[in-house]
């Protein structure tokens, strides 16, 4: 540690990702100012920014090194400009951001399935949401950002200024530096409610057709797919748009932007391994499918219910027990529908208990070399990490995805073969070259980096 450490406290901590399947020990220092960030990076031999730890694997862990916990850098945001511009600290959670901007009539440009992610984490993963087919990924709505690079200095970058560093940071998994501040472009909303249309499908083909149609019709869409039945694939498609004031019930029209995300219930803290086995998961999927209407148009839902349904249960990740779980998320281009079908069929036929999987359309890729989205289909499925036969099954599916020109999402990965990375991310070398300029001494590193050999 540099002796300029001042008041910053560090402590040895065991860290893991949201999936809790691997863990490693690091020295954690809480960063609560830009100055803290500079001092933490300068003189460190190995350091990594960490947000709220919602990435699934080893993205935000750094064995034997330093981890800068950015969640202390979360001061409230200033006023939103008339055009929706707002400057936010890198450690601010989308949860806190939403609480500050929704009542003013603004929404985040891209929302993941949980609001407990930080702005820095959203940039480092270049996250995508239900609106990707229309609006692209998170970093396409970042006007500029401030990055603390390898030597501890600050670099401003944007799509116009140091553009290569900007795009290398988008999806760069924290390996180009620490994002301490970003200027975001928000979306105007008239109300805090969504008009949601829900449709149930008992076969795959009609769902796929409906999803392609939804690209043009709905600003947001997502389908939940049941991968526990090998005969036919059933699913629930939801599409949504923010409602106009006139659509709200009279009582709500007085305060159309009211935003009070629900309190969370906690999962039990001690859960045995194997609680989520095939039988229980099958029963859950069944109950959930039955609960959805065959078809319902324009139902009003809150932001929390539509965008962040899982946030209703605190620490739901613990339900998988101490051996943890992983999420396999792939994307394949539009022309690889056959690969998508094979993946769905193989996962459905495998004995692996697969909780509700998510199927989404993605729009065009952006200039970031390591950004995940590309025009096509993305499928994400959660599975217990120690499920029998899981490793060879996913290796086989990875190969199909790569062959189809698709890729695995680095923010979720916990088991990809390093040999796959340059195939799935053909611009990896380009990213490495930019990274080497901002971090010539390889100060930034993570367990993900070591496992997938990203930086070398």
């Amino acid at each position, binding site marked *: 540690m540099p002796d300029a450490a001042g008041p910053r406290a560090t402590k040895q901590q*065991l860290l893991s990702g949201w*999936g809790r399947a*691997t863990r490693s*020990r690091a020295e954690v220092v809480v960063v609560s100012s830009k100055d803290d960030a500079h001092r933490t990076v300068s003189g460190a031999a190995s350091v990594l920014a960490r947000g709220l730890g919602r990435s699934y694997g*080893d993205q935000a862990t750094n*064995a034997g*090194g330093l981890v800068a916990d950015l969640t202390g850098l979360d001061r409230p945001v200033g006023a939103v400009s008339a055009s929706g511009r707002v400057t936010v600290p890198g450690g601010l959670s989308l949860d806190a951001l939403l609480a500050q901007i929704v009542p003013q009539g603004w929404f985040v440009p891209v929302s993941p399935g949980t609001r407990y992610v930080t702005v820095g984490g959203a940039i480092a993963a270049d996250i995508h949401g239900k609106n990707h087919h229309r609006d692209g990924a998170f970093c396409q709505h970042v006007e500029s950002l401030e990055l603390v690079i390898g030597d501890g200095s600050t670099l401003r970058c944007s799509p116009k200024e140091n553009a290569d560093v900007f795009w290398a940071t988008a999806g760069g998994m924290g390996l180009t530096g620490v994002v301490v501040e970003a200027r975001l472009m928000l979306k105007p909303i008239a109300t805090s409610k969504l008009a949601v249309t829900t449709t149930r499908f008992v076969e795959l083909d009609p769902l796929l057709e409906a999803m392609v149609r939804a690209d043009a019709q709905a600003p947001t869409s997502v389908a939940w797919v049941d991968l526990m039945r090998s005969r036919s694939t059933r699913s629930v498609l939801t599409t949504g748009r923010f409602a106009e004031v006139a659509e709200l019930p009279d009582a709500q029209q007085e305060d159309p932007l009211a935003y009070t995300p629900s309190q969370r219930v906690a999962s039990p803290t001690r859960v045995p391994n194997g609680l989520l086995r095939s039988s229980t998961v099958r029963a859950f999927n069944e109950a959930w499918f039955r609960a959805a209407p065959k078809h319902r148009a324009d139902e009003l839902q809150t932001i929390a219910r539509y965008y962040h349904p899982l946030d209703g249960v605190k620490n739901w990740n613990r339900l998988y027990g101490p051996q943890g779980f992983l999420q396999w998320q792939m994307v394949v281009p539009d022309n690889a529908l056959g690969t998508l079908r094979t993946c769905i069929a193989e996962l459905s036929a495998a004995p692996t208990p697969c909780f509700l999987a998510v199927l989404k359309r993605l729009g065009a890729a952006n200039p970031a070399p390591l950004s995940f989205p590309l025009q096509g289909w993305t499928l994400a499925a959660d599975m217990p990490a120690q499920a029998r036969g899981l*490793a060879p099954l996913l290796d086989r599916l990875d190969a199909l995805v790569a062959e189809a020109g698709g890729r695995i999402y680095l923010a979720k990965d916990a*088991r990809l073969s390093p040999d796959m990375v340059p195939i799935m991310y053909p611009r990896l070398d380009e990213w490495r070259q930019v990274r080497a300029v901002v971090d010539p001494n390889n100060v930034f590193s993570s367990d993900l980096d070591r*496992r997938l050999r990203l930086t070398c």
Partner: protein
Amino acid sequence: MRDATGAVQSVLVLGANSDIASAFLAALADQRLSRAVLAVREPSAAADQVLALGELGVDARAVAYDATNVADHDRVLADAGDVDVVVVAFGVLGDPYDLSLSTEAVAELGAVNYVGGVAAAHASARHLVDQGHGSLVVLSSVAGARVRADNAVYGSTKAGLDGFVQGLSDAVHGTGVHVMIVRPGFVASKMTLGMEPAPFATTPDEVAADMVSGLAKGKAVVWSPAVLQAVFAGLKPLPAPLWRRLGR
């Protein structure tokens, strides 16, 4: 780094030329193993192993290591650098025990198996704790679960080593380092060549498979085959006269 399914990428094996160690390395190579350091008394004797691992896509190399040379443990660990797994696999069986054995031979066995084993496990655990992750796998034996007359020295060294590693496992609890004791039964291998196989005899490949799955599940103790745990639960409280007769 170890991945979420438990597959590992790098390993250091202390005493890499035993049949169990070879089988374990091959099993890991079947998953994600990409780097292996084989610590052996005579590196040239491991040339074939290195070559075979290379053919499986593993960057393998052999380094000189003598478990009775105290300085060797830390040297080999430092040389291997960051590794996901360290295996303490060395050990000598020695001749069947009786009072005619030379005092030197008895002391030698204790020095390699126990003193060397304890020092190796200790140094390895510290190395793993410092790097912030990893598993330490120590080859014990059912011979240590209840020591028989005909392997009194070997069995006692394993009993002692096993006991040390149990304590070590508790000592590193909470550091993120995983410690696993492996207690194989009678393994048909070059170590036991010419010996009469005991009940529940197993093979190096089977032991290696049990080790790989124990590693993935984060087990503290692996009996191989698993049934030996129950067998020894029954054998341990056996009255001495009966035990003596069984041993013969």
